[in-house]
């Protein structure tokens, strides 16, 4: 069965330096790292301490609020250091790689596994961390089963990757992951694919395939869920990244935690942008060296896409979930009279006060704010990049004044900060919409739970 949906508003932001479709194995990373900040609203409590030995799949820390949710080591070795910041907040757990020991979980004939077995295996193995729940985009709460599970292979963000390409060789793992997960909800998994495109996913069984047509942000699951099976107050759905479905499948085949992370490294200054097969938390220099990028010093390195990713140092590590690694030039330069309309048309702009639309191929970007934050003046511009029946500006205002009731009524349950990426990018007043939404969701979690 397949359905079609078309998500209208939005925009395409094609940037120079998209990863080409060739894949290379990343060099062996001597150290790996986990950033607890990658798990939204998770409060880590360490299970292991510095110097402890770990295998692939050994639990490192768990969530203070639910000890069943554990984050496990992606590699074998020992805990080299635990970096802490203010108020002893854990910033990074560094693991030195050594050997290839694995924690093996006994898995019965999968035909006989029931819902409870699957959940308990996922939790024990650490693969549970791949499942995130909406509302809020936090790691799913094991006690509350969702009304549906969504997987999106329709990607639209700048520098987004092609899941057909990276999962082409893992169809069996993917099928296994889908079979296991659909047992939990006792119905098919909802998978979205780009409309009018050949896809390897059409041969996968146990799926409810939906063809999605649209520009960014139609690849964001919030907008797809809103159209397909909207979240009401008190309900939840689960979302899983396609590669993690394959990782879950591989776990149920072998009994070993699979931390494969295939990453598209893109950027204008990257000499040879392409895909790398690495592991969760691999060192960035295991994929690209200083010589692989131009103007090494004046770049910003981002775990994720340029609209929603997290800044990371070049000698840092891959994030837990991201399949995209972006390199963007820093824009710490002054531009004389740069505010004049129709000046500096090389900067992509959705506004018609620039001729940038005349040069669709020439999209050079940097990290300059191109102005300063101002009061919200222009109306109607956010709706253009928000294809949902939610009033984004009114919701943002409700979030700014922390009016929880209004936030609920205006639709906070259906969105996550990333959905405001394009609004961040395009709004005239340079309002930090993602930050406002993030703080608001944290408030919701604290007050409503």
């Amino acid at each position, binding site marked *: 069965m397949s359905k079609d949906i078309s998500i209208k508003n939005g925009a395409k932001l094609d940037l120079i330096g998209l990863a080409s479709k060739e894949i290379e194995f990343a060099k062996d990373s001597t150290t790996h790292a986990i950033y607890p900040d990658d798990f939204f609203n998770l409060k880590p409590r360490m299970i292991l301490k510095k110097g402890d030995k770990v295998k692939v799949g050994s639990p490192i820390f768990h969530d203070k609020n639910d000890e069943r949710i554990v984050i496990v080591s992606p590699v074998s070795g020992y805990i080299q250091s635990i970096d802490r910041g203010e108020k002893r907040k854990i910033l990074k757990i560094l693991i030195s790689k050594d050997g290839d020991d694995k924690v093996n979980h006994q898995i019965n004939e999968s035909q006989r596994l029931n819902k409870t077995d699957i959940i308990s295996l996922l939790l024990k193995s650490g693969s549970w961390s791949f499942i995130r729940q909406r509302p809020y985009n936090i790691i799913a709460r094991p006690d509350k089963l969702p009304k549906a599970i969504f997987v999106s292979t329709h990607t639209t963000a700048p520098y987004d990757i092609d899941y057909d390409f990276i999962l082409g060789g893992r169809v069996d793992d993917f099928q296994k992951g889908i079979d296991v997960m659909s047992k939990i909800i006792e119905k098919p998994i909802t998978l979205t694919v780009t409309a009018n495109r050949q896809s390897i996913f059409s041969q996968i069984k146990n799926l409810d395939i939906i063809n999605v047509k649209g520009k960014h942000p139609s690849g964001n699951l919030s907008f797809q869920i809103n159209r397909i099976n909207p979240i009401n107050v008190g309900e939840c759905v689960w979302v899983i990244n396609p590669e993690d479905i394959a990782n879950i499948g591989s776990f149920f085949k072998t009994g070993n935690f699979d931390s494969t992370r295939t990453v598209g490294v893109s950027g204008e200054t990257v000499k040879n942008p392409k895909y790398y097969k690495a592991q969760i938390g691999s060192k960035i220099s295991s994929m690209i060296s200083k010589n692989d990028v131009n103007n090494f010093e004046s770049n910003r390195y981002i775990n994720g896409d340029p609209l929603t990713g997290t800044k990371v140092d070049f000698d840092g590590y891959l994030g837990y979930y991201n399949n995209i690694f972006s390199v963007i030039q820093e824009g*710490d330069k002054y531009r004389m009279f*740069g505010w004049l*309309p129709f000046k500096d048309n090389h900067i992509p702009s959705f506004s018609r006060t620039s001729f940038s639309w005349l040069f669709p191929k020439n999209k050079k970007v940097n990290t*300059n704010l191109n102005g300063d934050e*101002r009061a919200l003046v222009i109306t109607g511009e956010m709706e253009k990049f928000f294809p949902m*029946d939610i009033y984004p500006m009114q919701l943002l205002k409700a979030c700014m004044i922390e009016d929880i009731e209004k936030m609920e009524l*205006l639709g906070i349950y259906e969105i996550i900060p990333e959905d405001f990426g394009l609004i961040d990018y395009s709004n005239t007043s340079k309002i930090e919409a993602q930050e406002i939404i993030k703080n608001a969701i944290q408030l919701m979690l604290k007050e409503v739970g």
Partner: protein
Amino acid sequence: MNFIRKNLDKIKKPFEKGGKLEKFYPAFDAFETFLFVPNHTTIKGSHIRDAVDLKRTMVTVIIALMPALFYGIYNTGYQYFIQSGLEFTFLDALLHGAYKIFPMIAVSYIVGLSIEFGFAVYRGHQVNEGYLVTGLLIPMIMPVDIPLWILAVSVIFAVLIAKEAFGGTGMNILNPALTARAFAFFAYPTYMSGDKVWVSEASNIDGISGETILGSLAAGQNIDYSSMQMFWGSIPGSVAETSTLFVLIGAGILLITGIASWRIMLSSLIGASLVGLLFNFWGANELMSFEWYNHLIVGGFAFGIVFMATDPVSAAQTKRGKWIYGFLVGVFCILIRVFNPAYPEGVMLAILLMNVFAPTIDHYVIQSNINKRKKRWGKLKIQTL
């Protein structure tokens, strides 16, 4: 460029944190960011940003105002020379107009920006660009012979009461430029109506006089201007609103750049045309039988709906709200013109009235969105029961 930059960096020192003039940083920042788009990079949220900012947006509005301003300057001279019977050239008219209007613009900017800078320094936030447009709009909608001190007082009232009292740019309920005009209109009516204010020097020289078309109609007099003259704008009126043609050029700029809402402009036009047409059938007095299409090209209607009703801060903010808001601006404009001869120009009061109602319109539009969501939630409860 490097030379200017280096010197700016030198001057900047005392204004920075811990410097002697730290308090005045917002004022310095306004000048610096006028010369250069700052080197600030993204810290939170999206790592890349669009080239558009509020400065660019406001400057585009100013560019859109230029054709009307240019014609207004010419028309000021033209009306003066025609009335006084002197021979004149195109350049003479322009020079006379410039001589009258540039001081008005200067007063508006100096007084208004001083208050804006003062508030920015007092509140410690950056100077918003909104006044660049307001400051130009105010002299453009005043009678040419208005004394400069009245202009200054109106500016002070508008900026203090209509804008800063509500929290500054982006927070005001009423359009500040129209508030300035309404203030002058009610506080100093003799300088804002009659036949001695619309033509340059009419207040000083006995031989010169001129009533606006709407004023004449309200007084029950006949008018001897053709529709073409009304459209072209060679008629007495406020400084820059007389020429529908040049206002339309500005409207074109605003619509092509996407800065003003076409929904508001179109729905105002529809509202005013419908009511005008209705009155044409009724035809009980001069203003009722005044052709509906002429209503659209005389007075401040065109200028008002293009540049004032579309002010995003004081207009309705939702799509559907904009349709309703614009339509009612058009309707009320003609209603006020026809039914209240004391206020021959209806567009100012119509827009101010709808400014007050815009938040209410938006409230109901958003409430319907909320109700839709609640209904979805409600259905769910029934299913689970």
